[in-house]
């Protein structure tokens, strides 16, 4: 071993430019025993390391940090869907008026808030901004929670018309004190549904109802997430498929680029 130590010292010395005596220079073993083990495990380690890094990047991409799933967003007014939807049982369309007719679901004007809050919680401090907006006429500035890239053209009205329930994308809003994304909104996620609408499409009566995605859809997405049942369609989808037929969804087109991108 001692020999090795001075081999390295010499190596450093050599690096400093000292010339070392040739007797030493011709020392028998250049590398100590353990370097064999090192060398042997080096290659597998390299391969392993690479795959670990790749996996990590991939995981990060789909992590809730990147997708911001379940991370509530600070709002000027801490509006609670839980209270208004679950508590008071207000229908989605009361505030999101254009959801059935326009691409944009619509955010309520201050007026809408004031219809009630001119009567109830008249001087609750948290409603200060609302009252201020009402009196000054200055608009409220809400933070976007579901923000698609600008090159994606999502249209609420058609999805509602075809029987995609609010919960399918926005989750159980009625359990959210502060609004938070429920899905990554990645293209891959959109395609999951566009490739098999019958897993999510429901009769109109269900669309605005705040209950967990119907059993078949949940089951389906579970199966789908495990990459099973592409194409084939067990009976649990019958209801959905019927709805699809009624709605005449042209599912051949749902995978077209032009459906979302222009």
């Amino acid at each position: 071993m001692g020999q090795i130590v001075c081999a390295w010292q010499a190596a450093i010395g050599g690096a400093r430019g000292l010339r070392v005596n040739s007797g030493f220079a011709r020392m028998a073993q250049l590398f100590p025993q353990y370097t064999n083990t090192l060398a042997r495990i080096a290659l597998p380690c390299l391969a392993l390391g690479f795959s670990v890094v790749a996996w990590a990047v991939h995981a990060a991409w789909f992590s809730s940090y990147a997708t911001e799933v379940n991370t509530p967003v600070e709002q000027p007014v801490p509006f609670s869907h839980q209270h208004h939807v679950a508590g008071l049982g207000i229908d989605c369309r009361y505030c999101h008026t254009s959801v059935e007719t326009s691409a944009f679901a619509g955010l309520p004007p201050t007026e809408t808030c004031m219809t009630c809050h001119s009567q109830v919680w008249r001087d609750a401090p948290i409603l200060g901004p609302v009252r201020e907006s009402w009196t000054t006429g200055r608009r409220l500035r809400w933070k976007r929670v579901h923000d698609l890239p600008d090159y994606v053209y999502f249209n609420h009205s058609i999805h509602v018309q075809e029987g995609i329930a609010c919960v399918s994308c926005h989750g159980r809003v009625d359990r959210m004190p502060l609004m938070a994304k429920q899905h990554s909104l990645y293209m891959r996620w959109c395609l999951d549904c566009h490739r098999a609408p019958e897993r999510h499409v429901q009769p109109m009566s269900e669309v605005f109802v705040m209950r967990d995605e119907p059993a078949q859809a949940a089951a389906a997405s579970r199966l789908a997430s495990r990459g099973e049942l592409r194409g084939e369609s067990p009976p649990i989808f019958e209801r959905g498929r019927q709805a699809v037929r009624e709605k005449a969804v042209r599912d051949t087109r749902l995978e077209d680029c032009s459906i979302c991108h222009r």
Partner: protein
Amino acid sequence: MALTAQRCEQVTDRLSGLVLREPLRRGWLAGFALAFALLMLLNVAIPWLLIRGVGIWGVNIPVAWGFAIVNFVWWIGIGHAGTFISAILLLLHQQWRTSINRFTEAMTLFAVACAGLFPLLHLGRPWVFYWLLPYPDTMALWPQWRSPLVWDVFAVTTYLTVSLIFWFIGLVPDLATMRDRAERPWMRVVYGIGALGWRNSARHWKRYEMAYLLLAGLATPLVLSVHSVVSFDFAVAIVPGWHSTIFPPYFIAGAIFSGFAMVLTLVIPVRAVYGLRDLITERHLDHAAKVMLATGLLVALGYASEQWMTWYADEPYDAFMSHNRMFGPYWPVWWTVMACNIGAAQALWWRRVRTSPALLFAVALLIQIGMWTERYMIVITSLHRDFLPSSWGMFHATVWDWATFAGSLGLFFTLLFVFIRLLPMIAIAEMRKQTTEGRE
């Protein structure tokens, strides 16, 4: 002392000496400085390109591909000689390859590296180049496998990787020799790591030769495939002057043609400077020149058959295209190509030319210019006048086009100069074998 050991000792000592004992020559320094300056030019051109966009080049509609693709094809072509020499000539038992294969393999690697640069740079959005690779992305999308550009990605990376493996395996025994002969311990450690503990064991040698032979067998179709795939970029398209079935063979011939030209332009000065005239002899130059002549004639055949097909098919667009190449606004390009690639190459019929380094050097240079211009002809003069006269246009190269090209030359030569300093440019072990067995 017995002959074999003595010869081996001489060869080994001399060749390893080229790296271990060679002083820093002024010629080397000058060359390196020049190459490095050009490399710095590339260092300016690339950031500016990324900041402003490909618009800083002369490309436009209709000529949407410009220098980037010309240079890409040119470099890839040059990258062919190395593998050709080390793989195909190995299978053909051409002893003379031994003196130059290591050097030309290195050349191949660097040329392919330069080539690989351009397709990336010429993208409109280079920062998303990885969309060309298949991986599970958030968009659930894949590359479009029917596009020759995807084939390029695979072909070039494969070619680079395989050449690298081939080159490295060739190096291992020599690295061992360097390890054992280097004076400075730290150098011995460094070479030692590269040598992977090679100890000249007979059993190792056997597997080694087997693997080397297999790699040669693999590299041979590969080298032929790479330029075929590159030629598909054009042959698969419908542009008159691109859409041609003879492109693959004609591109491969051209590649080896220009590759050997580059080999000679490099080897002739090197053998002079490092006094290797006895190892890289007139005989080697002669052989290389003969290969050049042969491939040159193949290229000429390519041109000829292109013309003949145009005439025979009587396809109006092609007819116009070939006429336009000769007499259109870009006529100088076509005539330069003919003069250099067909004209200059004919000088190689004379042994005098083939064996005189100076003349050969000149011819090789001309051929390289000719082959670059040929790619210019194929890419630009085909695009600038295609189907609808209303969309015809012209291409004007900009300063940045030239800067990037010069920069790539800088990259190439910088790598080459470094290689000459750090690694044995002639395969020592193979020379040992040849000097001892070669004489029987």
